[in-house]
């Protein structure tokens, strides 16, 4: 390499350095909108399907402030497990609206097939420099669906220290949710009534407020390595039930679903009840490393809460940069969850009659002991027109204890935690 080339190389490096003013800033000011459109298809065979188009636009101003706007539509249809267990006879349930019913055949996991919703979500973020070493990011989000409305706001302070090799961050967020279930609110732990009976539900709204704190450190380790650590604390207060979930009451000896006391349905099912507060904490760590032209991205999250949910999430991505315009990125995610203390696949009749199960009860499979595994592959490329695009395909599987030790009688031959499989397809296009 001659002297001229060496100098040119150094200048290129220095230019790149000056443009990246901190460990986490990589884009130069363009004063133009960068637009990213995407569509995601999510499909659980025989269960929920979702179609989500999204568009985001980003503008970086001369003063290094950045404006982000994003709109997401989410159309959901399909069937969802209502919480009741499979049993050795056919079961009938009342639809959430109270109009009509749906059934589960013998030995079949009960799925409520009336699930249908459309969500519209709009979010905005504005990042602005305070001075040479300090920035602040404001965020706002509004989301609406048929039975749920949510709005939130956040503010995050970022401070660069240690020659901008370390960035400290502190953020707060407040979210206010309004819940208005289809058919109204049933009394927690009350029986699901038949659709021929007068509704015992109250047609009103309820709320939930969630306050979050997120503290973080981002550190440049060396020329090829970046790492991040976060601590998160979230306090949620208000309505936490899933108003559509129920739990089966089964015979103490045979394990068969028992007859109700007041309902005209064949089986006895109680609406779930969760605590009205939840206190969550999380530790999060991430490492990104440039390896011979490729990029490794590894993260781990440890989360725990006062419902006794404890989870570990390990995420690994390896981006093979095939050329300057093309990459392939395999993705593996492993998630392990300990059940909430009030999670039960079902309760016995004597427990139901004496209410010895405690104050709270849920058979929502998402609160049970669970392993979630994701395998994915992403292909990124530049279109002939010079625009970045990518295609992503992922497979997600949830597994739980399908034959738990506390299964009674006929429950021992039932699948009390069926696997959930999902396929995710996404296409991105930037211009």
């Amino acid at each position, binding site marked *: 390499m001659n002297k001229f080339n060496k100098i040119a190389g150094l200048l*290129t*490096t220095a230019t*790149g350095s000056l443009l990246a003013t901190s460990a986490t800033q*990589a884009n130069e000011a363009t004063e133009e909108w960068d637009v990213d459109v*995407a569509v995601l298809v*999510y499909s659980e065979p025989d269960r929920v399907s979702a179609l989500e188009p*999204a568009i*985001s636009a980003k503008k970086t101003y001369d003063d290094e402030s950045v404006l982000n706007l994003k709109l997401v539509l989410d159309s959901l249809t399909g069937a*969802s497990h209502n919480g009741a267990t499979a049993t050795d006879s056919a079961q009938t349930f009342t639809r959430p609206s109270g109009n009509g019913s749906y059934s589960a055949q013998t030995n079949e996991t009960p799925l409520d097939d009336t699930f249908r*919703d459309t969500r519209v*979500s709009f979010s905005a973020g504005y990042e602005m420099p305070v001075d040479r070493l300090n920035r602040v990011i404001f*965020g706002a989000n509004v989301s609406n*669906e048929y*039975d*749920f409305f*949510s709005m*939130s706001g956040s503010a995050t302070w970022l401070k660069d220290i*240690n*020659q*901008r*090799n370390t960035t400290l961050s502190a953020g707060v*967020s407040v*979210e206010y949710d309004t*819940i208005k279930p289809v058919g109204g609110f049933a009394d927690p732990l009350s029986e699901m009534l038949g659709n021929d009976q007068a509704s015992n539900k109250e047609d009103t709204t309820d709320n939930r407020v*969630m306050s*979050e704190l997120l503290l973080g*450190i981002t*550190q*440049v380790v*060396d*020329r*090829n390595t970046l790492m*991040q650590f976060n601590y*998160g604390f*979230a306090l949620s207060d208000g309505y936490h039930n899933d*108003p559509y979930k129920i739990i089966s009451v089964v015979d103490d000896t045979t394990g068969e679903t028992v007859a109700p006391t007041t309902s005209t349905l064949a089986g006895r099912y109680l609406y779930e009840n969760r605590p009205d507060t939840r206190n*969550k*904490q*999380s530790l*999060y760590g*991430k490492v990104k490393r*440039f390896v011979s032209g490729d*990029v490794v*991205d590894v*993260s781990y*999250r440890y989360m725990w809460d006062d419902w006794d949910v404890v*989870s570990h*999430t390990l995420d690994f991505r390896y*981006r093979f940069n095939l050329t300057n315009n093309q*990459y392939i990125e395999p993705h593996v995610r492993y*998630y392990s*969850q300990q059940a909430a203390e009030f999670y039960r696949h079902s309760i016995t009749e004597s427990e139901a009659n004496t209410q010895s199960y405690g104050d709270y009860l849920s058979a929502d499979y*998402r609160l049970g002991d669970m392993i*979630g595994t994701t395998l994915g592959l992403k292909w990124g490329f530049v279109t002939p027109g010079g625009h970045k695009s*990518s295609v*992503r395909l992922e497979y*997600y599987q949830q597994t739980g204890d399908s034959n738990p030790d506390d299964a009674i009688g006929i429950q021992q031959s039932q699948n009390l935690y069926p696997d*959930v499989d*999902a396929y*995710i397809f996404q296409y991105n296009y930037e211009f």
Partner: protein
Amino acid sequence: MKNLLLVALVVSTVTGCSQMGVKPWERDILAREDMALQSDPMDAAFDDHIYFSKEASSGGQSFGGGGCGCN
């Protein structure tokens, strides 16, 4: 015990951080788009919403709220 671990982690991280880093002219690789901490924000937002709806955990890297998950 968890709080003690947390304090130990923060102290060791902050102490260790002052020993690490690069000079301003060594940031060429770190300035690459694919080396951004969140290089695919659209993917991350989709994933956050999916896993928030299917699991009992959320947040960690960013704020964890944002949705009903009643399905």
